[in-house]
């Protein structure tokens, strides 16, 4: 156990550990990076390193043992999805009146509070920030430094605003970590109160090597495809849901083919009909749009003569053929259209209609 298990982004990790060593870890920090870059993993590791009961040093910088009671309990939060599922199950068992007011929190160690976006809206809500405000001024019971980790930057407006005062006047003994894929999503007033650390993409070769070592259950061709699709994010590569992606991509291809070749509306509408309301539909739509963006990116790369960078390598031939039929302006318009659908989703547009309108507009 230790920071050695954290792959890539050595510079950022070193900076944070140096801050720990000097006892100057910022009271509020933003950890930015794409999905699966290891933001949460790093946040948990920092909490462990700051509170390890038998602290070790590696490379002259603080590390953690992973087995002492603090490390172990904090480490139990590492599998966030499982903990959130447990919390959801616990909420389901509450009385009806209490359910509405109960927010999802993960606290495997009394002094490390993980605040995930609250389902079903998947936003950080006021009740969660209130809990933080109530808890953070208590002296840590078993830790040297208390950690409060927001795993998403999708805040309800009032929740974000109520966080400002604590960010401005944080207690001596606590750090607030804000994890985000896009720092621009946070309020400027939050950004200005926190220091930002970034996790970047790690090179394709490193990811391929890692997959070859850890995911021997995948076929080499799958590994090559996944390594490219992970966009340099370790966590995403290791836990890639290829089947889910391929399904989304098949749907995205329907839109693409429909737009660039002979339109086949019955196939298109049969597909868009499966995108329904609710949390499941939301995820499915997000997957479709991501796959669509990935395909557009490949088309762009093929058109502009950089075929070695294509991510969907298994579709290279078909994509090359498609690329010949589109212009740069069309690709740009398509990307904008997909973004419009995305922002429409946030405004609760009817998903299947939004997709229909988007797909028909693309037809040249």
């Amino acid at each position, binding site marked *: 156990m230790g920071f050695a298990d954290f792959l890539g982004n050595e510079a950022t990790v070193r900076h944070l550990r140096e801050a720990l060593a000097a006892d100057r870890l910022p009271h509020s920090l933003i950890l930015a990076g794409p999905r699966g870059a290891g933001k949460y993993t790093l946040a948990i590791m920092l909490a462990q390193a700051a509170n390890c009961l038998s602290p070790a040093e590696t490379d002259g910088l603080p590390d953690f043992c992973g087995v002492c009671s603090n490390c*172990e309990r904090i480490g*139990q939060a590492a599998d966030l999805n499982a903990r959130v599922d447990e919390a959801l199950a616990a*909420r389901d068992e509450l009385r009806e009146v209490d359910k509405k007011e109960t*927010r999802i*929190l993960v606290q495997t160690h009394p002094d490390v509070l993980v605040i995930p976006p609250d389902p079903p809206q998947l936003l950080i809500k006021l009740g969660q920030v209130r809990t933080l405000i109530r808890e953070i001024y208590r*002296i840590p019971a078993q830790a040297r430094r208390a950690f409060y980790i927001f795993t998403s930057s999708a805040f309800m407006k009032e929740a974000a605003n109520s966080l400002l005062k604590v960010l401005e006047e944080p207690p001596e003994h606590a750090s607030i970590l804000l994890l985000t894929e896009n720092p621009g999503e946070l309020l400027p007033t939050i950004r200005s109160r926190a220091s930002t650390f970034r996790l970047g993409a790690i090179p394709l070769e490193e990811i391929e090597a890692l997959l070859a070592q850890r995911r021997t259950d995948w076929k080499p061709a799958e590994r090559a495809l996944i390594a490219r699709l992970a966009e340099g994010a370790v966590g995403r590569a290791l836990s890639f849901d290829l089947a889910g992606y391929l399904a989304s991509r098949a749907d995205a291809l329907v839109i693409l083919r429909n737009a660039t070749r002979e339109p086949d509306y019955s196939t298109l509408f049969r597909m868009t009909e499966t995108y329904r309301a609710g949390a499941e539909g939301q995820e499915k739509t997000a997957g479709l749009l991501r796959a669509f963006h990935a395909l557009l990116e490949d088309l762009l790369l093929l058109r502009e003569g950089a075929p070695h960078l294509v991510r969907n390598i298994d579709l290279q031939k078909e994509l090359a053929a498609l690329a010949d039929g589109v212009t740069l302006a069309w690709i740009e318009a398509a990307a904008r259209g997909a973004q419009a659908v995305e922002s429409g989703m946030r405004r609760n547009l009817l998903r299947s209609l939004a997709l229909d309108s988007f797909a028909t507009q693309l037809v040249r």
Partner: protein
Amino acid sequence: MLVGVEQEKTVQGASMEISVSRQDLLRELTATQSVVERKTTIPILSNFLFEAGDDGITITATDLDQSIRTTCAAKVKKPGSCTIPARKLYDYIKLLPEGDISIKLLDNHWVQIRSGRSNTKMVGMARANFPQVPEFPEASITRIPVASLKSLISKTIFAISNEESRYTLNGALLILKAESIAMVATDGHRLAHIEKSGEDFPGIGPEKKTLIPRKALSELQSLLSNTDAEALDFADDDHTLYFRIGARVLTSRKLTGQFPNYEAVLPRDNNKFVVVRSEDLSGSIQRVAQFADERSGAIRIRIEQNELKISSSSTETGESEDTIDSPYTFDPIVVGFNSAYLLDFLKAIGNTGEVRLEFKDSQSAGQMRPEDGSEDYKYRYIIMPMRI
């Protein structure tokens, strides 16, 4: 999920079997169940921890901020430990008739509860998941009389701030001196201060100040009113406060931050005063407050020529005035207050006896004191005036 550091005592298939009288068990569960958080998504926190030793059981509940641990006499057939869903157990035990209850740990954290011809099984969680609860320290314990602390809490707790952002005001300050004990609470608009002299705290230096969170105070209040003990043990370390009342131990994590320098705001030259019966004052304020501005609850107090006039007016409801006769020989004075703050104090002194209102001028804080307060207790309540 949480893992206590303490190792499970029984390694091979945990076991526990006890028999306890329903009356004893219910009494202890009632005392501990209030810290069990209703709205928690951390499953283990909605459980009681039962630990059976050789001569009885201990029951623990915690919400990570505070914990209560209590002991209960029981016949222990097999020592061991287990966790039991708190709410369900408490509701179930309440419904059982008087008699002995047997609790037995089965496989996979199932717990069997039998009493007379009732037989119930419910599923708990692994004992190892139960959070570690701090142990009462051995050193530097202060014994505080139960009656004193109870009275101190009830006379200050209402003045604690509800505003989350003013975190240093979310508790009351306990001040122990060698021969006195005092408590202060404020929300920035009013301040309640009570001091009891004639105590004896050996081992307390010149002064020991401790900020006690509101949640802990209300737990303490209910523990203190349900005990026969004369005195409680109080101790603290870097991060936790401990109160031991009889066989029950309450712990609470400390709050950070400095309680404001309240001594600076205690008025010194409020030399105009009037004495009225609490009951009269309370009645008048309640009547007049009906016609006060709904948001501020502001009422005007005018004192002149042996008369205390309380009045209010609002554009929506109308206006109202009450007059109480009382000797007053100083310069006339008019001052506005929040009626709710005045009533809080009158309620705290039980609306009995006489109360003395002391003023300086209409821009300065007013002070209220019970007129016939006993020698030992010095109780004062300071309210900031309102402009009306």
